[in-house]
């Protein structure tokens, strides 16, 4: 394997993200390549420097990154982070502008930065208290590597996943935190369907609201989006929620999800919706949605069409 091909893999190797076969190939190459060994050392120094400069990151950043990645994979489109006012978007824009000129190294540097950010976020967003668990005996293990060690010994790296069963009432903070994580992070859509369905009947805290808004707008699965929109009913008068519902109404491909959105939007109609409803009357293929919009416009004494 050439150094050129292996260099981009070194950051992944450092964070233990390479598949076992690739890791083995890279390690064999390292034994004979001074240049790549020094690249690994450089990677270690970079990671150490980043470790020393920890910065506060928003809660749920890791979940958001993973969610965006999953969305992109499912829908085959570029990840689009939701637009939000505040310090974090400004930081992202500044970061992008700073590195705009370094187009040649943008991809590998971006990969390193994303991995590092993800790692920090995982560290920072891990619950601090211990969650009550019932230990289970089920342990899944994969042998990651085997290598000879000194004095005739052998070193075997085993990755182990231990299953735990966590139980408690829905009102329990730890349970709710796990449900939120499941709604955002799980690559298993069935888990997201179930968790959003359970969150639907819970009080809507800011964190729950954020998760539901993201799911309503971005989840690749229509059942998750549908449940998320239904769950937003108690906060349907909120401006941020209405913005997302409007977006869903205009863009969601599933008529059931759009129907739930228009139902919630017209329950709290106001003058700012006129343009949206006029567009919907002209564009939506579903007669229920068009009629519901028409009726709302009539009741607001607004014209049905645009001139």
């Amino acid at each position: 394997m050439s150094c050129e091909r292996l260099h981009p893999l070194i950051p992944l190797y450092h964070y233990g993200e390479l598949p076992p076969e690739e890791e083995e190939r890279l390690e064999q190459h390292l034994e004979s390549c001074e240049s790549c060994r020094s690249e690994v050392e450089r990677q270690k120094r970079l990671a150490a420097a980043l470790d020393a400069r920890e910065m506060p990151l928003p809660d749920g950043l890791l979940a958001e990154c993973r969610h965006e990645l999953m969305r992109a994979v499912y829908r085959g489109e570029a990840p689009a982070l939701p637009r939000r006012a505040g310090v974090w978007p400004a930081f992202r824009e500044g970061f992008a502008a700073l590195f705009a000129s370094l187009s040649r190294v943008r991809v590998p540097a971006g990969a390193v930065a994303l991995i590092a950010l993800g790692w920090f976020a995982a560290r920072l967003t891990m619950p601090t208290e211990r969650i009550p668990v019932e230990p289970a005996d089920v342990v899944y293990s994969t042998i990651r590597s085997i290598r000879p060690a000194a004095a005739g010994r052998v070193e075997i790296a085993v990755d182990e996943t231990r299953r735990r069963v966590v139980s408690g009432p829905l009102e329990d903070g730890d349970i709710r935190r796990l449900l939120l994580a499941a709604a955002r992070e799980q690559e298993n859509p069935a888990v997201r369907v179930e968790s959003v369905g359970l969150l639907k009947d819970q009080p809507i805290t800011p964190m729950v609201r954020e998760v539901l808004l993201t799911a309503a707008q971005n989840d690749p699965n229509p059942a998750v989006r549908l449940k998320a929109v239904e769950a937003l009913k108690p906060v349907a008068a909120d401006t941020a929620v209405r913005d997302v519902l409007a977006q869903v109404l205009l863009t969601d491909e599933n008529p059931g999800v759009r129907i739930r959105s228009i139902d919630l939007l017209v329950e709290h109609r106001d003058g700012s919706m006129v343009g949206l409803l006029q567009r919907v009357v002209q564009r939506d293929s579903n007669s229920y949605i068009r009629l519901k919009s028409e009726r709302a416009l009539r009741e607001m004494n607004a014209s049905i069409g645009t001139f």
Partner: protein
Amino acid sequence: MRKLCILACLAALPAAAQSAVTREDDYWVRTLTGVEALPPEARLQVVSEGAVVVTGADEARLRWQLKARTRAEGEAEARRRLESVSVKFSKTAGKHLLAVHRGGAADAGLKLVVPRSLPALAVITREGSVNASGLASDSITLASGAGAIHAGRLEGNLVARTAGGAIDLGEIRGSARCSTAGGNITARHIGGNAVLETGGGDVDVNEIGGDARAESGGGRVRIGRAGAQLVVSTGGGRIEIGEARGMLVLRSAAGAVHVGAAPHGVRCETAGGPIHLSKVAGSLRASTTIGNIVAQLLANRPLEDSFLSTARGDITVLIPSNLSVKIHAANELSGGSRRIVSDFAEITTQVRGAQVVAEGVLNGGGPLLRIIGTGGTIFIKRQ
């Protein structure tokens, strides 16, 4: 002679009567009523622009009442708007038509009482709910451009369509074909075949007598009992089947699958979620991308060649001690032979490359049961 003149004048009066404009809460209201004779063989179509309630009765006539409402600054304005409301009854090509024109009214609710046993009845409204009960027509069509559909007790076959809104059925003796672009579909009992389709929403039916197909673009599907073949698919959501007396075909893009009893075979696929199959026999094929599978095979019912597979999770098969079957189980990427656990001495386990494989013949052998896991543990248990 005078009496004859009076009778002639009365006969010339229109069947419909109308009320003055009255006030109800924030609305001005005008109510129109009418009675029309309908022969027993009549085919009736009702076309309206608001909510419709239709009830069957043992009489040979059609009675209707239309209540039109509007908001207006004053009575004169209200009267002008409500006078444009009209109801026309006509007969063309063997079909009777009752057509409601809402005119300037904000809404117009129609109530109908029709002969119970009309051969065919179709109620179509531009918007608003449709509610039907007490009918024994062979063919009943209920359609709304926007609104819920409720059907109570119907003897015949039903077609229910709405562009948005729930469909709620009580006791349907015949077949039912229901579709909504978005909304839940619920039914207590459908005696014949059923096709239930929603663009997004749950499907929940206690019992279906005949063949059935239930589809949701995203939502849970629950069928308590299916009398014959049942095909279910959902874009995401749990599938729960109590009992199926025919072949079961289940597909979910995301969600758990639970089957109480399926003695005539199951095809089951989910892109994510556990699968739990109780009391199954016949041909069994179940696969999930992520999730555990539990399959409990029936004693005293023949098993056909079957296949269980998960890409991530455990598989548990409960086999009656007297069932004749040949087992082939393979578990990839496992760390040791403990990843296949068997209660049967006849099943031997060995490592073949990256796989742990367990094979054996139970009770002299029979159809092949293949169990394929990736990671996780395969349990082959005696029951």
